[in-house]
């Protein structure tokens, strides 16, 4: 029996390493856990895309559970995600606020006019400073902010229908049901 111990041990280590590698295959390396989860959302105050004299701030979107979606007209995946946002806005389950990240105002306006505007308001973050505060590194990104202004979830990349049904919607329902 003892003579099988060493080969069995080596086989065991091999299987463990294989298991790690196999799990690694299924992970998305672009999905970097945000240190902002369950922390107060970073304060900001920016002019809106549609009206430079109006501003949008954190206080505006933390009245109720809301989505904060980082987008840009130069971002290809945003175009892929956009119809879903428009549909969500039509259903009116949750207000969607936008952070127009490092964009040109003309391009952003053209985007909203041609593809539809799902946003209650979009903040115009031309130099990306607010983006840095929110830890934005890959547009589109979507944050779930609760009514106390705390970030509850971050989704990196375009939201798919199954992301919405399986993760975001249940989370939003749960947060909306909570009092205070």
């Amino acid at each position, binding site marked *: 029996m003892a003579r099988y111990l060493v080969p069995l041990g080596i086989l065991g280590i091999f299987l463990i390493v294989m298991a790690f590698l196999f799990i690694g295959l299924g992970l998305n390396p*672009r999905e970097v856990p945000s*240190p902002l989860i369950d922390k107060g959302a970073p304060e900001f105050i920016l002019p809106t895309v549609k009206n430079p004299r109006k501003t949008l701030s954190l206080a505006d979107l933390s009245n109720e559970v809301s989505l904060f979606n980082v987008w840009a007209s130069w971002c290809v995946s945003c175009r892929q995600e956009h119809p879903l946002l428009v549909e969500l806005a039509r259903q009116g389950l949750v207000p969607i606020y936008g952070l127009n990240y490092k964009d040109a105002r003309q391009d952003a306006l053209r985007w909203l006019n041609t593809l539809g505007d799902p946003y209650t308001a979009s903040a115009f973050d031309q130099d990306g400073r607010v983006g840095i505060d*929110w*830890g934005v*590194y890959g547009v589109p990104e979507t944050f779930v902010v609760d009514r106390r202004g705390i970030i509850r979830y971050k989704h990196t990349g375009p939201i798919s229908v199954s992301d919405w049904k399986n993760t975001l919607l249940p989370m939003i329902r749960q947060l909306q049901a909570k009092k205070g």
Partner: protein
Amino acid sequence: MRAVLTVLLLTLGLAVHAGVVEPRPFEDPADEARYRQLIQELRCLVCQNQNLADSNADLAKDLRDQTYNMITAGKTDEEIVTFMVNRYGDFVLYRPPLKSTTVLLWFGPLLLIVTGMVILFVQVRRRAVARQAAKDLTPEEHSRIAQILADTGEDPRP
């Protein structure tokens, strides 16, 4: 001659390397050294296997700006690193801190080496013992073994 050539070649490499990072005015060379050190150690999150110094990504440039501005504003290295970690997490650090979640990352390789050494040691030891045991046999025992092996049809050589 050789020394001159070496220095020349080395500086040549530096010039190529400095190409990505835009030149920035520093009043104090020590600040510039800190800046170079920091952008070497901070990871660009867009192109994940490059640091801020090597990356051409837009975000890397913004974070270089951020680092530069914080240095000229008199922030310490620690404050700058904390600023980055608070926003992007430990992932921005090429040298992750030692915490419960990174223990395996830090000591995993050591663990593998130690396991390998132990297995090797045990194997070598076992063979040495077996060889010694074979030597300790008397000539009568050897001939008996040869007899037994011949009966079972096996090759008597070890």
